[in-house]
């Protein structure tokens, strides 16, 4: 098992427990069951001996998730994940066969596009229904299973690539990353629906993840891992907390909403800031103007985050405790990420 | 410790007696009496200022003293290296606005007054830009041909601004109008520092002997006389003329002086 995936798996398990204990789910048992199945699948992905096996598990997971709710029709729900898996499978065929270099470059395109399609990023966004349960919606891919799939896919496929292919792969990831970071952060700000705004916010975080993976230096990988962790242990729990208020379309402007906005925007001392510092390091090592683009795009997080913070409503009691835990975890990860990064071996 | 006490005694002497408060009162008193006579056109003895100083007068006195001790007056107990043209300029600048702060008094043309003061500051500090020195006597002693144009231009600007700063234009404040023939205590305190600063900055420093005294106070008195003349001219020609001078003539002159200062600094670099 890759250590990165192991760390993310632990984070996802923690998030699931958090959602069951502190979340507003009306049927925590069902959530636990679905999440548990997802966790098992994710563990299988993490321990899979090769990418093909991992892909098969992802395929099974996609079908299982697609079968949870049929508001949008099974075919529609399967469309993106199966398309993504087909892309990755095709890329693996192209990469393994001997032939001209362009085939390997196409393989890089396939893996990168497949990754974006599995997670549901631009330009392969999944169809989204705000009313769907989290476990059945594309958020499940973005925030729960996606991080592990991405870690396994990127790190495993990198081992197969030649240096030329790896450079192409990195460039595509950075391009897609910037696209998603900009589009996601701006859309999280301007879109009308609150739930959709959360989805775009996830997308913008993923933009930084892709940029981190695209930076072919250790700092980039560490940044990507921290961003993935922040998605799993920060944004996802907070999204779950905001679901009731989102349904009721209530917004509040209390200090706790602002604190949450600070966490979501990647302000210091939370984990997002540490990840950004690492991204800057990686960008500086490779090509410093990229740091400028990243810096500008990072500022776009703020308006959307302020908006998302307000969608949290007025948490009280158990929910407030839950938010305090999220904040504490994020602060600890933001100030002292070394243990996690060491565990992940980055 | 004894050095410190000695310095304290010297500075106190400078502040209170010469070239500080006493010198200011003597010089300013004569100049102010002359001004009141000229302005009113008669020879009746003007009223004395109130006995008890107001906070405005107290503040002007402090600032005036601080400015006066910076002058290159002959036999000044203030050590030459301890003087600074910046302190003199800023201290005098305070005197202009004290009445607004503490007297609740409105000025008729505060914008123009501010413009005049800004131009005056240019005239005072402009000559210091190139030499990079702030000792007044050093600036006065600068007779390098290259700096002459800047010095003459700044001197002219100084003289142009001074009537406004001494309140000798016909746009007097409300209290001035009320005061009638009463001597203006704040102006009494300002005559010497303003006129003496001109002598300090634009004339080479005097020696510490009788000729030096004569030269310094002679030139300072000449400046004061020029101000009296200028003030009289402004009073005779009226507020419109004064307004025209300070709103239409002063800004371009100040701009030219600034240009001269910049060009001089560039050429002498």
């Amino acid at each position: 098992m890759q250590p990165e995936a192991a760390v993310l798996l632990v984070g996802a398990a923690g998030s699931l427990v958090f959602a069951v204990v502190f979340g507003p789910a009306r049927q925590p048992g069902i959530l636990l069951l679905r999440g548990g199945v997802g966790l098992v699948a994710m563990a299988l992905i993490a321990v899979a001996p090769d990418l093909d096996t991992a892909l098969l598990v992802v395929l099974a997971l996609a079908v299982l998730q697609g079968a949870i709710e049929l508001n949008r029709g099974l075919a529609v729900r399967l469309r993106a994940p199966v398309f993504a898996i087909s892309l990755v499978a095709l890329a693996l065929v192209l990469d393994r066969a001997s032939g001209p270099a362009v085939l390997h470059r196409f393989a890089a395109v396939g893996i990168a596009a497949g990754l974006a399609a599995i997670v549901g990023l631009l330009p392969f966004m999944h169809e989204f229904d705000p009313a769907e349960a989290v476990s059945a919606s594309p958020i499940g891919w973005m925030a729960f299973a996606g991080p592990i799939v991405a870690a396994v896919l990127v790190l495993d496929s990198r081992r197969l690539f030649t240096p030329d292919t790896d450079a192409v792969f990195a460039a595509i990831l950075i391009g897609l990353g910037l696209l998603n970071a900009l589009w996601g952060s701006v859309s999280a700000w301007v879109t009308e629906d609150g739930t959709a705004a959360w989805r775009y916010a996830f997308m913008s975080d993923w933009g930084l993840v892709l940029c981190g993976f695209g930076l072919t230096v250790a700092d980039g990988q560490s940044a990507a891992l921290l961003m993935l962790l922040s998605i799993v242990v920060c944004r996802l729990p907070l999204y779950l907390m905001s679901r009731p208020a989102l349904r009721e379309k209530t917004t509040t402007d209390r200090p706790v909403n602002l604190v949450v906005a600070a966490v979501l925007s990647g302000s210091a001392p939370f984990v997002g800031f540490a990840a950004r510092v690492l991204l800057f390091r990686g960008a500086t090592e490779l090509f410093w103007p990229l740091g400028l683009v990243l810096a500008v795009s990072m500022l776009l997080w703020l308006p959307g985050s302020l908006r998302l913070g307000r969608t949290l409503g007025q948490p009280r009691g158990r929910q407030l405790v839950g938010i305090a835990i999220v904040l504490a975890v994020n602060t600890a990860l933001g100030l002292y990420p070394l243990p996690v990064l060491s565990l992940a071996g980055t | 410790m004894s050095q410190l006490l000695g310095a304290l005694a010297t500075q106190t002497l400078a502040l209170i007696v010469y070239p500080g408060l006493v010198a200011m009162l003597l010089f300013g008193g004569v100049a102010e009496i002359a001004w009141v006579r000229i302005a009113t056109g008669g020879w009746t003895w003007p009223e004395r200022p109130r006995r008890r100083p107001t906070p405005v007068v107290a503040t002007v006195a402090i600032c005036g003293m601080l400015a006066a001790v910076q002058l290159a007056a002959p036999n000044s107990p203030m050590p030459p290296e301890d003087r600074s043209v910046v302190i003199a300029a800023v201290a005098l600048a305070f005197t202009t606005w004290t009445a607004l702060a503490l007297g609740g008094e409105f000025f008729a043309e505060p914008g123009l007054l501010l413009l005049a003061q800004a131009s005056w500051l240019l005239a005072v500090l402009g000559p210091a830009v190139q030499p990079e020195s702030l000792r007044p006597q050093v600036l006065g002693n600068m007779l390098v041909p290259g700096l002459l144009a800047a010095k003459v231009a700044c001197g002219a600007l100084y003289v142009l601004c001074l009537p406004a700063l001494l309140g000798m234009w016909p746009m007097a404040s409300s209290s001035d109008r009320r005061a009638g023939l009463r001597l203006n205590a704040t102006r009494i305190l300002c005559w010497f520092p303003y006129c003496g600063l001109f002598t300090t900055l634009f004339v080479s420093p005097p020696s510490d002997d009788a000729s030096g005294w004569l030269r310094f106070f002679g030139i300072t008195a000449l400046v004061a006389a020029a101000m009296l003349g200028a003030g009289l001219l402004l009073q005779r020609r009226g507020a419109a003329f004064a307004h025209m001078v300070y709103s239409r003539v002063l800004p371009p002159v100040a701009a030219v002086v600034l240009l001269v200062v910049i060009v001089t600094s560039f050429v002498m670099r």
Partner: protein
Amino acid sequence: MPSSALLLPIALPLVAAGVIAALGAAGLEVGRLVSAGAAWAAVASILALWLPVRSTQELILGQMGFGSGFDLRLDAVGFAFGLMVSVPAAVVLTLQKRSWQEAALATLALGASMAAVEAGGVVLTAIAGGAAATAVVLVLDTEDPRARRPSWAMLLAGWLALAWAGTILQVRGGTAVYSAVPVSSITWQVASLLAVAALLASGLLPWRSWPSQVWSRPSLRAAGIALATLYPLGFYILVRLYDMGDGRYPLPAFDGVLSVLGLAVALVAALRAQGATTRREFFGEVVPVFGGYALMSLALGTPLGLSAALVALATTAALAAAVALLPDRASIASLAVVAAAVGIPPSLAFGSRVLGIEATFEAGDFLGLIGLGGTLVWVLMMVAGARAAGLPAGRGRPVAETSPAVALGIAVATLVAGPALALFQASFANPAAAEVMPSAGSLGGSLQSVATVSTVLPAVALFVPLLIIGSAAYLASGSSSQRAEARPPVLAPVAPRALAGWREAVAAARVPEQYRTILNLRELEAAASGGRPVLWLAALVALAFAVTR
């Protein structure tokens, strides 16, 4: 003291914040007591750490995970800025009543700010400073969510820029630790980034930014904390830039540009001050004017300029606390604060400004023109102060958060502290200047006088008699007759009007009818998020095409 004691000025406020929050959540309102205690303890600890040894102390606690170690360092610069941050914060935390939430956040901001000052490297400063900024935004919002507060984006941009600069130093120079950064890695690009970070962090901008805006809030509890904990940090970065550049900025033009910017900041603030409609508005411009002056002197690149800037900043810190405690009513306290703010002789502000202006003239190369500008700004501030003395006080604020006696005390202290200028400079500012500028050893003077290149300012000998004479004169004089009333501005605000017109024109701009369909954001969003296979395939083809190039 063991080096681990360096943690105290940071840890004490942070622990106190935790205690306040825990007890507050349990229903015990002890915020004021604990936060004040922690703040004063931080002051005491920083004094106890520095004064006995007066030399640099370091604490290295290992890596944190983003290429930076948890290195703390207390040197003369850290000591000076530590006091600038902690003392005013302690004053307002002691005297102003606030809820436990506000007290916890304010104490947190203090701890973070102290961490930024004690941080041994750029990245750690960025993280701590960013945390302080977050805490300040939160405390302002907790106090009043509808009132004006600093633009969070601007603050975040500043600290992100600093983080980026730190990482550039780590990558290019191998380290971002202040004392170890190779001079060659401080290129003009990196220095520009650091300068931008500093300017944004302290809101040093030639328009109305947060250091002025926060004073227009109905309540001024959080404003005082914001100014105390955040405002000095930008200057701190600029001082550290000298440290990393071996006592100078990478380009001479850099000095000029920053100095001019400082002058512009002060000028614009002074223009606003002279047009203020209430005394509170005037007080709101005091800190920006002081900050502009400090930047102007600091950026000159001379030891005297740096030293004068540090004295000006210390005065700013004191006055910020005084303004925060001042009630909105006509009183001798408000008059004293006005006098201290405009820098009447022989106050500390007077001395520091004179030195700052003198430093510009002595720096050479036309910088004297900046000093000339600085003098003009000072005059403008005199006019503003003179007007403000008779303006209506303001909208009024809760009595519980004011302390006129202490405000008066602080203002009078800065007024009578002029004679101690040389002492203050020699013991507080010069060591800090010497820490970052090797040439600062040439700073002459003694405990009684300040020597510049061309003159000597005999602070004790000149200002003590002046102070005594002045006191006697004021005691002998009657009271001033001031009636609060609206006063027209001396200079009409031309620029804001033009700016407003420009803003209106921009706001009125519309996309031409024929282009609206292709620039419709909602339709774009719908097209991208619709999950349309055609788009997916098109994207795939585009990517495949791109990699064949």
